[in-house]
């Protein structure tokens, strides 16, 4: 008899608990409708997407614009600066290199030095402080 009692209490009580729990959850749903809850939003500390200077200003390098291209050339040797110095994205760097090669071939731009007229042009980057370390 006592066994039946314990079984009853064990199986009946949880159901009553469940009922009360359901009641509590229903009251919780009422609470969440208040305007003092956490707000869904983007990460406010997320940094702005970085862009290279040519993409930012929406410039497509062109071999006829040799003044712009000469800024990516060393004034001492005429060598084209690498991506680790210019800080351009891969596609723009490739475009700049191709256009410089075209301009040099068309005799718009010298191969082994920078045109002395353009020596005082503003510097887009500092070759002494590259974005990534030099290979050498």
């Amino acid at each position, binding site marked *: 008899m006592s066994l039946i009692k314990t079984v009853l209490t064990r199986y009946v009580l949880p159901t009553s608990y469940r009922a009360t729990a359901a009641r509590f959850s229903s009251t919780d749903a009422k609470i969440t409708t208040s305007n003092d809850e956490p707000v869904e939003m983007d990460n406010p500390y997320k940094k702005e*997407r*970085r*862009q*290279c200077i040519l*993409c*930012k200003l929406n410039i*497509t390098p*062109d*071999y*006829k614009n040799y003044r712009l291209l000469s800024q990516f050339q060393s004034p001492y040797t005429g060598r084209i600066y690498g991506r680790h110095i210019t*800080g*351009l*994205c*891969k*596609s*723009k760097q490739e475009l700049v290199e191709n256009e410089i090669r*075209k301009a*040099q*071939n*068309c*005799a*718009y*731009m*010298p*191969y082994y030095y920078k*045109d002395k007229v353009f020596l005082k042009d503003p510097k887009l980057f500092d070759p002494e402080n590259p974005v990534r370390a030099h290979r050498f």
Partner: protein
Amino acid sequence: MPTYELALMLRAMPKPELKTTLTRISHAIFDRGGIIRNIENLGFRPMPYKTTAHGLVHKEANYFVFKIDTPTKAVADLKEEYRRDVDVVRQRVFLAQEPSKNDCTLEEELLPPAYREDVQKMIDVGKTQVNRFTYKFKYNSGLDYYPFQK
């Protein structure tokens, strides 16, 4: 007909002569069924390096860029004609580039190497190769002798 850019360097000469040269050059294009979209004059300026053409050394040139539409087969013919022209110092033909609109990928390129897509691809390729630092020769090769020099 694709659009080409014809970069021409003409020798130093007085203006009326230059005019006749330019008309001669454009008539050569029209005769081959081409059209000229526009002509750009980049001016008369010293060349960055001296050029020899038709037995003369040129240090200055008139720079012109013709934007033309011609049949592809006519281009070689045009180049051949301008090569024979004594007023043309140097000439180059390029396909006119379309303004390409692609997003900047600098942000992805500045990530640490392990997060870069091309590096991950390289690591995946490396996993399929035999690592020559940890590779050990297996003696159950079916041969009853060691095939390499010890």
